[in-house]
């Protein structure tokens, strides 16, 4: 069972604001989903190797050759707020 405090903690980690109603609903939904997910624990997985990826590749290397990147105007064009030299963001604040 996921408590309200846990929801708020995880939402902070995810940088996600939730309204009070959403916190309540999320607590119920996450509890239900995690309870279902935990059916995995019926299995004996002692000694089983985890699979993180399915491609049989390791250390794909390439030459480290410099090449041109996007011009600034292309990079800044889509930003909600940009100057000619960077992205503008609100102050990180004091708290």
């Amino acid at each position: 069972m996921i408590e309200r405090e846990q929801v708020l903690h995880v939402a902070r980690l995810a940088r996600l604001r939730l309204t009070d109603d959403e916190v309540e609903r999320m607590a119920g939904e996450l509890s239900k989903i995690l309870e279902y997910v935990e059916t995995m624990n019926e299995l004996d997985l002692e000694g089983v190797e985890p699979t993180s990826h399915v491609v049989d590749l390791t250390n794909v290397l390439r030459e480290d050759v410099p090449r041109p990147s996007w011009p600034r105007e292309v990079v800044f064009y889509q930003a909600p707020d940009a100057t000619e030299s960077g992205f503008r963001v609100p102050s990180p604040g004091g708290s």
Partner: protein
Amino acid sequence: MSEELLGLTAAEQAARIEAGDVSAGEVFDYWRGRAAADDLGAYLWVAGETPDDAGTLPPIAVKDLFCVGGVPSMAGSRILDGYRPPYTATSVRNLQDAGVRVLGKTNQDEFAMGSSNENSGFGPVQNPWDRTRVPGGSSGGSAAAVAAGTAPWAIGTDTGGSIRQPASLCGIVGMKPTYGAVSRYGMIAFASSLDQCGPLTRDVTDAAILLSHLQGRDPCDSTSLGIPGGVPLPSAERLDGLRFGVWGMEEEGLEPGVAEQVNATLAKIEELGGSVERIELPHAKYGIPAYYVIAPAEASSNLARYDGVRYGHRSGNGDLTSMYEQTRHDGFGEEVRRRIMIGTYALSSGYYEAYYGTAQKVRTKIAEDLAAAFEKVDFVVSPTSATVAFKLGERTQDPLAMYLSDYFTVPMPLAGIPAISIPCGLSEGLPVGFQIAGPAFSEARILDAAHALEKSIGFEGVPVA
């Protein structure tokens, strides 16, 4: 000529272009008109004009999450509303190099998270067979466009079933290739160890043609390998000597009408010289639980980039953190927020091993089940979806019921293997899909088997209006 195009597969249209019966520009024009008149909600953007160089093959509908230079590419999310990337995904570029032009961008579940297309930030898509029903998801727009004849063919992405399930629900062909067959560069990421691009088409031959152009190693995606030997045109008409292992027919929730069509297809396999036996995938039922840890965990990491700084939506007053939090609250839809929360929780301190670690081990067990099956049989087959297309709104209030829509399609991406869904009949007037999976890089053999079966099934009834 133009109206005649509607009745032709993409390969047949290409042959008309090649023969000089019709120009590629005329073909593009025709489909542009069809796409612009779409009233199912299948498109988020349609090309405004026919390009001077219209290529050599019919144009394609592209799922919104593929970056196409200068064209809106929003992954169905309000957080990317209006975003036009400066570059084009390798998969789309490969198609362009082969003479295929982009017809439009198709609607999808936001960031590919969904099985009904109802999670799109830009509204749902209706199923052309019955407008009160969903087209499936997450590549719902691509599937509906091909089924309704507003696109000659399409591409989508499959993470847990997002190509095969909508193909099944819309009565078309959809294929998820082996992980690594097609570059993921320029695909807006959902779950990077699972995502794979593939075709949605009217028939198996069209799927093979698209896949032959899509596949290939790409220096921009270090997990890409291409398909060794490429993808030849399928030609098989018999299944002599081939062994098919069927699973999941006793599943609770499998509709009798779906089971009936799948059983009829198994009988056709035997008529064509193949053999059918029951197989067990003992860990398949843990596929959904493992998937709903792994995919959200990877998504929570991939979606951290949407912070209102470099592109897309921004909202909120106050300091930087407050801007991040408000932007992400306002920009993401409900299901995306839910998955970010599940994934962040599963990866958070103290829970990582219990959830993510366990899910990765289950992933190993599922891959072992499939490997063991392929010791005995050439293909693993099942229904693609336990049900026909369900009603709009039917599963939106119950996330778990929606997640279970992917029961038959989730084991393959967890194991990284390829699988196709072909239409095999109707139940209550709605299409049923038959799924054929094979070992890694067995695309050519799967396509051949699907080709032979497709001929024998003779599915007709794309509800073109």
